[in-house]
């Protein structure tokens, strides 16, 4: 997030898209609701599903799945045409405006209506609302990123935010809501194939040299590595022979899992470090039992860049070790020394390597979390980014044409399937499904289907249905509901009994390499 969670309540207009906030980030949804109920903020929800926050929304834009770039361009079209953009801000802080203006020129409300299904009058009203407000905050999540055009959609949100001067001020911002607890931290720490800790590129010689010096090595590899979605095909091609998986369950979470299973079975050597024998661990050659979150010390960094302490409450179970100790042993067995006596010592090394963490220390964290960048020990941390301008000089606006989803419906697969989560479970359910309280609330996968589709297919509420795509089939229980539009069905990926990722498409966004989990063409049948 460029801004902080607390600032959401300071906005005049809150635009949320691709996030069913009530289910995925309930605590943030409460803030949104409060701000709207107090009458301080107007709420715009752009989502194909009738999510809970639609009830509070002043405007609900129900776009067809995968058409985000089109409606965002449409909003910008109207704003520019009616001179509602923030010219001063753009002149001073941005570049690329001309190209953007040219691109969105053709996105008239009528055209956008024909692509997205959003009535032209609603689009205009929202454009006016955003264009005329002082502070608009944009919140989004995987609902817009998990598409082949995901990077485009994220850039479009940034375009709109810059166009209206909504970056670099309190109560505004471009705010992705991170799904998993430490996605932000994992990225900050350089668990990415093309960036080092602190986001310097692996191709950057001086950054590599600096880190190599801290690690006491002569050189580090400069060739960018493979992303998770590229690793699996690389295994099938015989290029990757050994895979080390720590705390992830790709055999359930990744798109087109039939393909993933093939890769996990093919790889010469698979080592999995986890607390449960997950679908992935069950395929491993060696399984290393890690300690659970309640059994270890460390830090997590939340979606607003706030580093916070994690503290061990109980001893590791059996002969489990915290993950850091296991990696440390492996370091030694590979002939390297990695002498850390505690997570705090590792953190102190992080402070030397990642400048934005330099001022954060365990003793400071005793008094509460700190938001990076925090360059030195006296720095209070940073509530919102880009206050003094953008890091790269000027904020780059990019012209982005709308491209349709990779997979379109046809006669055989006439319905669009979109996936997500519910609030009682988390990800592939390895933890939450072992908690009786949560399991009893949501014991099985549910397919949401619109009443008119249900009627046509002869499906009633509670029936078992078979859902198939070009890649596989699953069966699960149907819930007939107005949550989804006609022609769209929805389910979650928490349940291994109905692994929805047998169906999803592994076509990738060309830049972010995110698979198109949110759109795939399916057929639904009773039975």
């Amino acid at each position, binding site marked *: 997030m460029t801004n902080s969670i607390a600032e959401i309540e300071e906005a005049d207009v809150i635009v949320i898209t691709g996030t069913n906030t009530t289910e995925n980030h*309930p*605590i943030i949804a*409460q803030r949104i609701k409060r701000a709207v*109920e107090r009458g301080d903020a107007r709420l715009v929800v752009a989502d194909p599903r009738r999510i809970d926050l639609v009830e509070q929304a002043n405007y609900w834009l129900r776009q067809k799945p995968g058409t985000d770039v089109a409606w965002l361009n449409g909003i910008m079209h109207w704003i520019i045409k009616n001179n509602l953009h923030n010219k001063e801000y753009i002149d001073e802080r941005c570049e690329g405006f001309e190209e953007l203006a040219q691109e969105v020129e053709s996105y008239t409300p009528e055209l956008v209506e024909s692509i997205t299904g959003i009535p032209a009058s609603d689009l205009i009203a929202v454009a006016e609302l955003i264009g005329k407000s002082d502070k608009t905050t944009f919140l989004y999540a995987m609902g817009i990123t*998990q598409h082949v055009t995901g990077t485009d959609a994220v850039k479009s949100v940034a375009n709109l935010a810059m166009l209206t001067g909504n970056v670099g001020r309190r109560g505004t911002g471009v705010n992705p*809501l991170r799904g*998993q607890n*430490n996605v932000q931290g*994992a990225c*900050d*720490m*350089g*668990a*990415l*194939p093309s960036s080092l800790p602190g986001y310097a590129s692996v191709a950057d010689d001086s950054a590599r040299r600096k880190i190599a010096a801290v*690690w006491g090595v002569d050189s*580090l*590899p400069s060739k960018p*590595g*493979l992303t*998770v979605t590229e690793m699996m095909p690389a295994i099938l091609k015989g290029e990757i022979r050994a*895979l*080390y*998986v720590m705390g*992830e369950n*790709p055999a359930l979470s990744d798109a087109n899992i039939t393909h993933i299973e093939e890769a996990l079975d093919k790889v*010469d*050597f698979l080592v999995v470090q986890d607390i*449960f*024998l997950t679908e992935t661990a069950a395929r491993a050659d*060696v399984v*290393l039992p890690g300690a659970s979150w*309640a059994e270890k010390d*460390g*830090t*997590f960094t*939340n*979606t607003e860049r706030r*580093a916070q*302490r*994690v*503290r061990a*409450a*109980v001893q590791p179970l*059996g002969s489990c070790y915290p993950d850091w100790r296991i990696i440390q*042993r492996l370091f030694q067995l*590979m002939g390297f020394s990695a002498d850390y006596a505690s997570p705090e010592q590792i953190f102190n*090394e992080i402070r030397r390597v990642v400048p934005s963490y330099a001022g954060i220390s365990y003793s400071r964290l005793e008094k509460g*979390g700190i938001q990076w960048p925090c360059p030195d020990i006296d720095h209070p941390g940073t509530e919102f980014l880009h206050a003094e301008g953008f890091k790269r000089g000027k904020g780059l606006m990019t012209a982005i044409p709308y491209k349709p989803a990779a997979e379109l419906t046809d006669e055989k697969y006439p319905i669009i399937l979109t996936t997500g989560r519910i*609030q009682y479970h*988390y990800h592939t359910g*390895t*933890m*939450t499904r*072992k908690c009786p*309280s*949560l399991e*009893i*609330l949501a014991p099985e996968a549910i397919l949401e289907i619109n009443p008119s589709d249900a009627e046509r297919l002869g499906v009633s509420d509670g029936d078992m249905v078979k859902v198939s795509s070009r890649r596989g089939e699953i069966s699960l229980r149907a819930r007939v509901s107005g949550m989804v539009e006609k022609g769209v069905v929805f389910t979650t990926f928490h349940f291994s009994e109905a692994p929805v990722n047998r169906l999803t498409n592994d076509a990738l966004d060309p830049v972010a*390499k995110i698979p198109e989990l949110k759109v795939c063409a399916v057929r639904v049948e009773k039975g």
Partner: protein
Amino acid sequence: MTTIIETKKKVRLEIDGKTVLAPEGATILEAARAVGVRIPTLCYHEALSPIGSCRVCVVEVEGVDRPATACNTQALDGMRVATRSERLFNLRREVIRMILAHHPLNCSPCPKNGDCELQDIAYEYDLAPNDFGSYSIKTEEYPWKEFSTPILDYHPRRCVLCGRCVKVCKEIRGLGAITMAGPGALASIQPALADPESPSRCVSCGECMRVCPVNAIEERMGGGKGKPWETEKTATTCAYCGVGCSLELNVVNGKVVGVTTDDATGVNKGRLCSKGRFGYAFIHSGERLSKPLIRNEKGELEETTWTKALTRVAREFRRSIAEHGPDSIAGLSSARCTNEENYLFQRFIRQAIGSNNVDHCARL
């Protein structure tokens, strides 16, 4: 530049002889707290707007006959307030006696024993079970009532009908999934359903349980027993979504038995969702892996020692590097592990393996 203009006017009043300058609109309770005068309360909760249902907080305002409830009476300029007198003591005592007539003071088997607002106030006002026998208007146990969610139990006899739970669900969750229904002292908390057929709006967050001053709302499948004084609380950060709520793991005898929060801490200020509050049982699940496993000749995973498992891993990695180069190995780190572990993992892949083939599931 914006100049911040102090719009709030102040009022001057006297509480127990102390002069207080309070912002306009403050309640007598807030004004009293600001100068360190303690007024007992029961239904009042700092995170909520005043409820004004219990009358424990009564005070005397000069010139007004009827005692006023401090939690919801505005402090006015020139007011003279007394928080202590024999009359007030007796009034408060009477109110608590009425509640105790209804609430079994059977504290020893109650998990809230020692951390109970009703128990504290009964103690303060010198009330014991035999003080109110004659008030016992409800001698029979109620039939157990369905609550708004299957994961919480509601005990009508323990309920003091303060209304905090109803308020928190409405004000903080924005839901209104529960309501108080029934006559007077026989009222109880029930699911608020538009009609008996409609599903409960409850999202099982447990906020109602958090604010309950007694133990009237309880986790049905709680992690186990533990008295407050033998419970160790460890402050940590939730392991689920990216909001990063602060919470406390409650540990008894080396086992996590529950989750509590501190109203003043973290991004959540005491609030949690169902996963944060009830998603801890996996820690002690019988399905946890406790020993390293290795695949044997028969193709099955069998238990092994750390040395054997790790030596095998290191050997396979070395072999792959020697035969096919470092880029023949890839590592998947985890968005659920700590920063320290992610850092070390990528350092391992980059330094010990010599490849940038490291990623995590942020894209999923």
